[in-house]
């Protein structure tokens, strides 16, 4: 059994919070540069140029590139032969979030409950999803999730008869409805299958994939490409001012489902797409 000190987890989480909020992933910067080349609208190009300048300034000064430094969401892949010692895993992650958001000058955006809207003051609790895996590895993947785009996300329980065409229509309708509110160019996470909550979780996890990396399943990769084409034909464009680059990437994840079901969830991420991971 491999032992991982809780203090190491907290330190890694603190660094991830600061890094993810002040430096855009290289794959995402590359996607923005491609969008700049492909965008046909002059105003749209100008928006993308500003986003790239903003990323430079934020990274140079180690400040957040978006004031909404989001929910701190973590996917934890912990091997069955690894365990955390000297503290509880959830508390170790929260401690890292507390330190990262304080020392990184990041905004604290979490309130106690939807009804009692008192700010918790330190951006905790983190949102943690565990995935048991074989071996003794320990991998933490963070997604900083802004609310503006999360608010425009949607889930639908389709019927098997409605099928894949209805699924595609629902994804595009969700983008149309979100319009400028989701802060395009967006990254689109699509989860299908499983019961209700599984689809939503897959859609969120799909956002952590490096930008534009296709699904290894060629049929799903083709679906991603088709959806991207349809989304970019909507005309919404960068910042919603009109243009040809509404999404940078569509990531689809699929899971087995019930004979009676075809759940589909769409989780949107704004152009400040913040994700990172670390292995301990």
């Amino acid at each position, binding site marked *: 059994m491999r032992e991982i000190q809780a203090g190491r987890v907290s330190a890694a989480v603190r660094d991830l919070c600061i890094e993810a909020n002040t430096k855009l992933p290289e794959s995402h910067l590359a996607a923005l540069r491609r969008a700049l080349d492909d965008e046909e609208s002059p105003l749209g190009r100008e928006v993308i140029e500003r*986003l790239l300048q903003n990323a430079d*300034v934020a990274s140079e000064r180690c400040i957040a*590139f978006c004031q909404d430094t989001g929910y701190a969401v973590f996917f934890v892949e912990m091997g069955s032969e690894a365990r955390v010692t000297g503290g509880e895993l959830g508390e170790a992650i929260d401690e890292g979030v507390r330190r990262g958001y304080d020392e990184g000058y990041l905004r604290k955006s979490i309130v106690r409950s939807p009804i009692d809207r008192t700010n918790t003051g330190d951006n905790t609790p983190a949102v943690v999803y565990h995935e048991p895996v074989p071996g003794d590895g320990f991998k933490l993947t963070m997604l900083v999730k802004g609310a503006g785009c999360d608010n425009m996300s949607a889930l639908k329980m389709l019927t098997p008869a409605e099928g894949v065409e209805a699924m595609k229509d629902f994804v595009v309708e969700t983008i149309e409805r979100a319009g*400028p509110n989701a802060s395009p160019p967006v990254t689109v996470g699509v989860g299908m299958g499983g019961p209700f909550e599984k689809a939503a979780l897959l859609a969120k996890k799909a956002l952590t994939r490096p930008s534009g990396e296709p699904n290894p399943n060629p049929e799903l990769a083709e679906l991603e490409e088709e959806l991207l084409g349809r989304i970019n034909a909507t005309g919404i464009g960068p910042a919603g001012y009109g243009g040809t680059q509404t999404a940078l990437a569509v990531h689809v994840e699929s899971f087995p489902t019930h004979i009676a079901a075809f759940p589909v969830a769409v989780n949107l991420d704004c152009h400040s797409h913040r994700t990172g991971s670390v292995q301990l």
Partner: protein
Amino acid sequence: MSKEPIRLQTPLTGEGNESLRTGDVVLLSGVLFTARDAAHARIKEAIENGDPLPFDPEGQVVYFTGPAPARPGHALGPAGPTTASRMDPYSPLLIERGLKGMVGKGVRSEGVIRSMREHGCVYFGAVEGTAALLADRVKEAEVVAYEDLGAEAVRRLVVEDFPVVVVNDLRGGDLYREGRERWRRPVVPG
């Protein structure tokens, strides 16, 4: 942005706003007041109770933002616009009291747009996700009300050449609708 920018000094006037057109690029200088969800809820309460408002809305511009903390040496932390539609239930209350500009992102309701046209108020878009660049244009920042709300407190900002685009003008123009119509393409079946 693509056109030659128009320089505007706040406070704004209804007459001055008449000449602005959807898609105009504007550089705002002067005072902006920040307020978002929680501050708007309190402003509504203050109006209902007849209590004083955090600022006199006449001629003023509200910026929908909740900044991140400032590093030492900066007037304000990163501060980009938040989704304006969440303020739709409240905005007419301020517009009827003389508010002449709002800065945010995302579409406004028909009710807000009607109220803006009736009272000479313009809605400007700032580019979300450029919080670090926008904070550079803020020269002074001070909390003037609701300090307990933290990032959501009302702040008085002094800005210089703060870059925005006219989204909703006084003639019914709407950049989001027009931009989308202009760039929409038919989908070629695969």
